[in-house]
């Protein structure tokens, strides 16, 4: 049997295993080893497990993963998200839809510290949703703005998912984070415009709040000094070139730990939560990384990416159409898979196609993360929506999905802008790099 036929069978087996409830990382690794054994030999394939596990576990570049996860967990435990929401609320809460705007702002700021969409949604649901509902906000707008804000988490640097993309593609993490700045700002602006448009059309769904005095605003600002310091040190350190990304994450961990202690949040239950979250999420991401690496071995020896690129070339499709088809695929995947899983499973096939079409891998990384983020708010299984639904059983799933719809539309517009003008993404890396 030809290597490419075996590879195609391998892909089918991988999806079959995933469908059979085999964990995604395990499915990738088992498929990779199985097909590698078929093509090369059993001993070589099994030894791949040992070499890949040992190489990945001891790789210091990857150590940024546990540091970032621990940083996010500690920031959550310290209650930094509440400070951010209060700060944004004191400046925006008096406007119609101001609390929804504050939620998006709070999500963006918290996402920049914690780097995970789901964690951002879970945290902001606890912090912002009760406040919005108490103020008489329509549940659809309230939940929609949290889900939309949560999707920003993976795009706002320093984001864990951007780090993972950089590690999987051997790209410069700092360059990717710099490239994400303008698209992330555009996403925030688009979300804000969406909220403003919704409340203009239907003013009753988001009542105005009381205007906070400048004294209150000043107090909120002073109260938020810790989170501003944390964000400033981590982001400033990375962009200013003071330390590398791993060092920045480690510095962030130490600051967040001290803040947790200062706020009296180093309780037994908080520490237990931090422990379980950090340990399980770190091991889960490593499992997927190792699985993806093992899978990529069989893909490269079967020359499948090259075959795919040649096949797409032979169809003579415009590059733009191929990219749109990939967006559609990621939108569907993003609605079924978690961001990391969707990226890890597809990257080995998709990246050669995109770079083969002449697109920049840095640009593609940002686009892919944007579209997967949108998928997380899209039916039938948008993960952000399900996290929200799991935490607020009183609000029907249909209402939450209806709330995310305007944001999904604004995300699609943003995607089209970033696709037609790639310079928006690549300009900053070109001048800073």
């Amino acid at each position, binding site marked *: 049997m030809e290597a490419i036929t075996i590879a195609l069978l391998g892909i089918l087996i991988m999806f079959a*295993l*995933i*469908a*059979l*409830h*085999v*964990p*995604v*990382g*395990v*499915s990738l*690794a*088992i498929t990779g*080893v199985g097909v590698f054994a078929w093509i090369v030999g059993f001993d070589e394939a*099994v*030894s791949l*497990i*040992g*070499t890949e*596990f*040992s190489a990945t*576990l*001891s790789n*210091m570049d990857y*150590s940024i993963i*546990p*540091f970032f996860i*621990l940083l996010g967990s500690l920031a959550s435990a310290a209650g930094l998200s509440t400070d951010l929401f209060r700060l944004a609320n004191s400046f925006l809460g008096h406007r119609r839809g101001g609390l929804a705007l504050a939620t998006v702002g709070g999500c963006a700021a918290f996402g920049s510290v914690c780097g995970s969409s789901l964690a951002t949604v879970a945290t902001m649901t606890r912090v912002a949703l009760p406040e919005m509902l108490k103020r008489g906000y329509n549940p659809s707008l309230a939940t929609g703005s949290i889900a939309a804000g949560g999707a920003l988490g993976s795009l706002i640097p320093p984001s864990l998912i951007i780090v993972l993309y950089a590690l999987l593609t051997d790209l410069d993490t700092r360059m990717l984070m710099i490239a994400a700045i303008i698209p992330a700002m555009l996403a925030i602006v688009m979300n804000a415009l969406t909220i403003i448009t919704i409340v203009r059309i239907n003013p009753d769904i988001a009542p105005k709040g009381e205007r906070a005095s400048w004294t209150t605003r000043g107090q909120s600002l002073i109260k938020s000094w810790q989170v501003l310091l944390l964000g400033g040190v981590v982001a400033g350190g990375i962009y200013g070139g*003071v*330390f590398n990304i*791993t*060092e920045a994450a*480690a*510095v962030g*961990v*130490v600051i967040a*730990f001290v803040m947790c202690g200062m706020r009296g949040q180093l309780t037994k239950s908080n520490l237990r939560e*931090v*422990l*379980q979250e*950090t*340990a*399980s*999420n*770190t*091991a*889960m991401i*490593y*499992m*997927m990384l190792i699985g993806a690496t093992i899978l990529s071995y069989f893909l490269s020896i079967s020359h499948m990416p090259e075959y795919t690129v040649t096949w797409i070339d032979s169809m003579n499709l415009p590059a733009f159409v191929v990219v749109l088809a990939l967006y559609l695929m990621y939108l569907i995947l993003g609605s*079924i*898979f*978690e961001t*990391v*899983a969707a990226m890890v499973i597809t990257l080995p096939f998709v990246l050669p196609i995109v770079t083969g079409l002449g697109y920049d891998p840095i640009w593609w990384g940002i686009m892919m993360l944007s579209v997967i983020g949108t998928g997380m708010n899209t039916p039938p*299984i948008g993960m952000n929506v399900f996290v929200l639904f799991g935490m607020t059983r009183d609000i029907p799933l249909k209402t939450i999905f209806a709330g995310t719809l305007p944001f999904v539309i604004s995300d699609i517009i943003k995607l089209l802008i970033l696709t037609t003008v790639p310079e928006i993404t690549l300009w900053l890396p070109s001048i800073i790099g």
Partner: protein
Amino acid sequence: MILTSAIEKSIRKTTELIALIGLSCLLIQAVMIVIDVLLRLFLNSPLFGMEDINQLLITIILASFFPILLIDSKNITIDFLGQLLGTKFKVWLDVVGQLFTLLLFILVVWQLAIFSIEVEYQHTLILQIPIAPFWWLTTGLMTLCIPAQLIVTASKIYQAIHSHSGISETEGTD
């Protein structure tokens, strides 16, 4: 089941304790990195051999996190098919997923043990610390994944059989 539950409890406690030690080491490592950064920035004199220590430490820290991942069944799984086919099939699909996970971790431990033997005479680059003891420790921690996963698999099989017999009983009653 009382025996299984007692074993599960003790394995769970062990995995939590190991993860807690790992997390503490991660915090210590973060502090060491901060000290290294500060020394480099202000005294132009970073800690000697930090790369070696970091590399050895991170391997053990990460290995300490895998058993808790397995005992808590926190791996990402797509249960779309199970939801589509109903509870009766879902529980058996869960068993399939756990069996494959068990198989992979048996292979991992076996191969890490071979790797630990292979690096018997190797040392770190700067501090010349022998690396084999660290890899044996890593292998030992990963070995705990097998009983952890065995417990999860056994529990899923029990659930599957139990739910199956439950359905049969209900059907019989009807």
